[in-house]
């Protein structure tokens, strides 16, 4: 008896991902694009944590179990995945914003349409 069905979480994650992708696709401004990317990464984490809570143990049993499920232990892969993604998001944000600031110094703008010096 689940108090909240799993698919509710998956829906929220799907919504976050789509909205984030929309933001990343339509925004002119590099920082806004980055915000869209952060939303997408959040969607990944919602998925991962929801699966951690709802799925991990049984699937282990079903897949021939790389770990016996004697006393019931919840696999932590989902949470670890989420932690790793959070760390990666932080690293990405740091590098991306550093680039935005450096570019702003030379161009006085961080709108993507202004980035047209590289063309073939």
């Amino acid at each position, binding site marked *: 008896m689940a108090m909240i069905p799993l698919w509710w979480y998956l829906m929220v*994650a799907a919504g976050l*991902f789509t909205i*984030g*992708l929309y933001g*990343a696709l339509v925004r002119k401004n*590099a920082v806004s*694009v*980055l915000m*869209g*990317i952060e939303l*997408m*990464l959040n*969607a*990944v*984490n919602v*998925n*991962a944590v*929801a*699966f*951690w809570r709802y*799925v*991990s*143990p*049984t*699937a*282990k049993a*079903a*897949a*021939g179990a*790389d*770990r*016996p*499920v*004697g*006393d019931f*232990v919840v*696999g932590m*892969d*989902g949470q*670890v*995945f989420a932690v*790793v*993604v959070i760390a*990666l998001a932080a*690293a*990405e944000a740091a*590098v*991306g914003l550093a*680039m*935005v600031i*450096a*570019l702003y110094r*030379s*161009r006085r703008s961080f709108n*993507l349409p202004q*980035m047209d*010096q*590289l063309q*073939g």
Partner: protein
Amino acid sequence: MPHIPSILTHFSPELILVVGMLLVLTYDLWVRGREGLQANLAIITTVLALVATLVLWVTMPGSHPVFEACGPGAKAGTCRPGAFISDDFTHFFRVLGLLGTLLVLISGQTYMRGRTAFKGEFYALVLSAVLAMNLMAGANDLIVIALAIEFLSITSYILTAFLRHDGLSIEGGLKYFLYGSITSAAMLFGMSYLLGIGGSTSVPALAAIARNPELAQVQGYANIMLPALALVLAGIAFKIALVPFHQWSPDAYQAAPTPVTAFLSVGPKAAGFAVLIRLFVGSFSSLSASWLGTMGLLCLLSMVVGNVAALTQGNVKRMMAYSSIAQAGYMLLGVVSLGGKTLMGLDSVGAVLFFILTYVFTNLGAFAVIIAVEQATGSAELGAYRGLMRRSPLLAVSLVVFFLSLVGVPPLAGFVAKFAVFGAAVTGGQVPLAVVGVLTGVVSVVYYFGVVREMFFGASEEGQPGPIRVGMGTTFVVLVALLMTLVVGLWPEPFITLANNVAHSIAPALQAAGGH
């Protein structure tokens, strides 16, 4: 606890790289009076890691899982498979990555010297990129795969934008970053669904589910696993720069400092193929019927778009970007012709590995020349190559050889590689793709010849520029690359055996089945 001795042995190349990277980073702190030797330290580190890899490969062949661990709930003897596998396949890509980096470091040393004050940081980043490539080669867990790909991406973004006073460099870096981050977010999203299917990020556990069709049907996974895998494929295709995930590559190639461009053209590609092959051919070959079509499409687009778009480029770095997109298409051709076998006894995966091997040396040789020319003329535009034959016969002739090898002219290495890949495609049931490959290969002659024409027949307007003095490092790299291009072309047997052995280590089941 993870088993420490196995980490110290089978993970030693990576440990050496980490230590070397930290030393390079903090070089200024420890060493006074002998500034600017970070490049040498980086070269020493790479050589040490290379030696460690070779020693491991020779003394301890076979597959060694590292970071095997028993969770607190596990009973004895039932441990989680290692997150990293050190086998022949890993060694192969370790050696390629380290050798490639070594050549880049040697040829790019003088280039970077005058351009940045952050030498320690630059070489530390290069070393960490190699580390990331090694991790990609051996990763056996979704978390580690994602982490390694992102690691390499982040390092590549920084390296591309490294010359920050150059607005172009930053622009290229930012474009690379934005495309890359969106793609990797999509890849991670796909991985999160795989996590839901497997309940675990361990690739063997997922592969077990994929091999079990009843389970997949009953639980309705089949519909989700493939799209999720497609998202993962997109992330990898971005690193390899396959069409349509290639838009970043011309900009990044043109904007990056040229040694970094050289690195980007081989390192991430090789590592990306390592992940691609280990994941799709090694673990999810049971689903090959489903992913072959998608990959075939990517392959077709890459060969066509890469070769056609290269025709109109006026900047040699940009042209090389499209050329390497096309080359990646040829490599992928080997992957999609699963089960094919060539006349030389190479199977399809072996053909890919052989192709990557030749590509690394040929491309790096070409880039060593490009770096030297940019060093002398300050430009990578086509005009900078005017009259290169007169200014430096060594550079001009060797660039012609490398281009011929990239086109696939016998008896050079590139010919054998292309022959192998096309052969695998024909026997593996991908005849139309092979035909397209051959035709686009003919097209590629045109753009390479554009450069050659400038070098040999281009008359310079502003008098006679003097000869180019080629540094020791560049000469060394060019000669090594030339040697390899010729040797592999004329005497390919040992390399074929090598590639085949490595391929068998990753997909033994495939070989046993003897076909598709």
